[in-house]
């Protein structure tokens, strides 16, 4: 895993607007939003339901496009990339951690972690090394041959984190990563994310409802009615 010092902005959003339509009625989710996230930071984004947190996360992660404005992430202007280019960019730049883990139930922990590497030109042996490294970081190398149903919720989320870091992305985006976990498991996951940030200098952008989870981040932002407070 590559390491580096906290640096200049890795995420720069300027004048972001995002409008959805319910029938013909426009719903302005994000309005003229600007955001600057320094590289290597651990940021938490809070806000009430419907405030636009997940939409903002999706735009940063290249899963969605703004209605207007510019999105520059890891040196790339995402608004200029095609869907195919975006997919490739995501596979190289972003690690995803979801609330409900989203592991593939028919694959073992190791195979789930290996999934993003199937899009690379790495050999099977190199992929195995990467998978073992990622699972060692999250402390689950001894469970690599277990299926998701054989793991606890906390372990599943740690496998999901291993999958998020296995291709050494610059940024990890986490959408309510502790939302489905008990307190102990949530603490373990947050500690792990803290380590990823501090030891591997991954930029982490986390959406959460949980104030205690947000406290673990170095920067806390609040989003309300489409605008950052």
């Amino acid at each position, binding site marked *: 895993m590559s390491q580096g010092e906290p640096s200049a902005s890795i995420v720069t959003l300027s004048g972001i607007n995002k409008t959805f339509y319910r029938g013909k009625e426009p719903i302005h989710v994000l309005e003229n939003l600007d955001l600057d996230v320094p590289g290597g930071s651990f940021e938490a984004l809070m806000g009430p339901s419907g405030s636009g947190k997940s939409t903002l996360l999706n735009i940063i992660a290249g899963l969605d496009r703004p209605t207007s404005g510019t999105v520059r992430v890891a040196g790339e202007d995402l608004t200029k990339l095609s869907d195919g280019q975006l997919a490739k960019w995501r*596979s190289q730049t972003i690690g995803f951690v*979801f609330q409900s883990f*989203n592991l593939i139930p*028919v*694959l073992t922990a190791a195979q789930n972690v*290996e999934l993003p590497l199937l899009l690379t030109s790495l050999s099977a042996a190199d992929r195995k090394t990467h998978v073992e490294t990622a699972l060692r970081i999250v402390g689950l190398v001894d469970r690599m041959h277990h299926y998701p149903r054989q793991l606890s919720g906390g372990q599943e989320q740690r496998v999901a984190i291993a*999958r998020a870091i296995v291709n050494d992305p610059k940024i990890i985006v986490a959408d309510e990563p502790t939302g489905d976990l008990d307190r102990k498991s949530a603490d373990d996951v947050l500690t792990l994310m803290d380590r990823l940030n501090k030891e591997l200098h991954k930029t982490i952008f986390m959406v959460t409802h949980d104030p205690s989870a947000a406290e673990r981040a170095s920067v806390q932002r609040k989003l309300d009615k489409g605008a950052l407070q």
Partner: protein
Amino acid sequence: MNLATYARRNLFRRRGRTILTIIAVTVAVLIFCAIRTFIVAWNAGADEAAADRIATRHKVSITMQLPRHYIDELREVPGIQAATWANWFGAKDPKERVPFFAGLAVDHNTWFDVQQDMKVSADVLAAWKQTPNGAILGDVLARALEVQVGSRLVITSDIYPGDWEFKVVGIYTPVRKTVDRNTLLFRWDYLNNDPRAVYSKEHLGWMVSRIAGSADSAALSRRIDAKFESRDDQTMTMSERAFALSFLGGFSAVLSAFQWVSLGILVIMTLILANTIAMSVRERTHEYGVLRAIGFPPGHIFGFIVGESLLVSLAGGLVGAVIVELLINHALGPFMQDNMAGVFQHFFTPGWVVAVAVGAAAVLGVVAGLIPAVLASRLKVTDALRRLD
């Protein structure tokens, strides 16, 4: 692990549903092959008809007869190498050991000169010529009627009254698998001389001619028919294949219906498969969203879905092919040949039918997966991620 691992593992995520779908494809392939085998077997005689033979019958109907002297005039037509004739006897086994068989009164002097795909030895032919009520049978019919050379055989007819007694003088040997081994041949003069056959006196049912290999059979047929054009009994001459097909007569509509049914079976199979794949895709939409999020392009999602559909259909197709081989070619086929040889001389599923069935299963498997695959691969990542089971 590779990309195929994921597609393969997905196959048995809903084990029961996948197995039922494979069984559905298997049954569809089995029915398709059975229907096609039936059609091929039914047409086998016509399909393998000799190219150097033409048949001449009454222009109005095969059931109407021609004057005997027509055969002499036919032989005078340039291009005819040899000609013979036959009358349909409507033979029936009074003991009902055989449900149906062909009984033909034929010209014993010329029959085997023209019908060269039935062979008898010179001794048998000599014995036949010396025995007015002599009969020559196919081996399957002889076995079914429990007779051998020298046996007395009594049959009835649905055309001529009373019992008809014959002496078996020989068993003919077919030179091809599709030659009927369930036919009874006896001398036309035996029928012609019997007072019960006064209706057929000096008449023949149809004439068969062997023509020179280089002859234009269509032109020759026209010349023959032109020769009898001004007579009371006009003729219709055709290739042996067309003649064999004309025997099928009204049954051709049923065969045509069977062809459509066999295609309908494939359509039903495709719909079942498409339904299964659509359900699977619907259940996994969220998962496909996750794959898209971590960088899998739409083409991979498309490939996973179409690949899964192809694997299911191919598995069903191959299982079906194995069952066709075991059930039809090793069990039903031999049984039909031994017990229904009069109708099916060669009841086997040809390799090309199995290949078409498995190929169709594979192609339709891809077709069944196309729409769900296109829809899933075009779904926005954020929409897919929002979709829960």
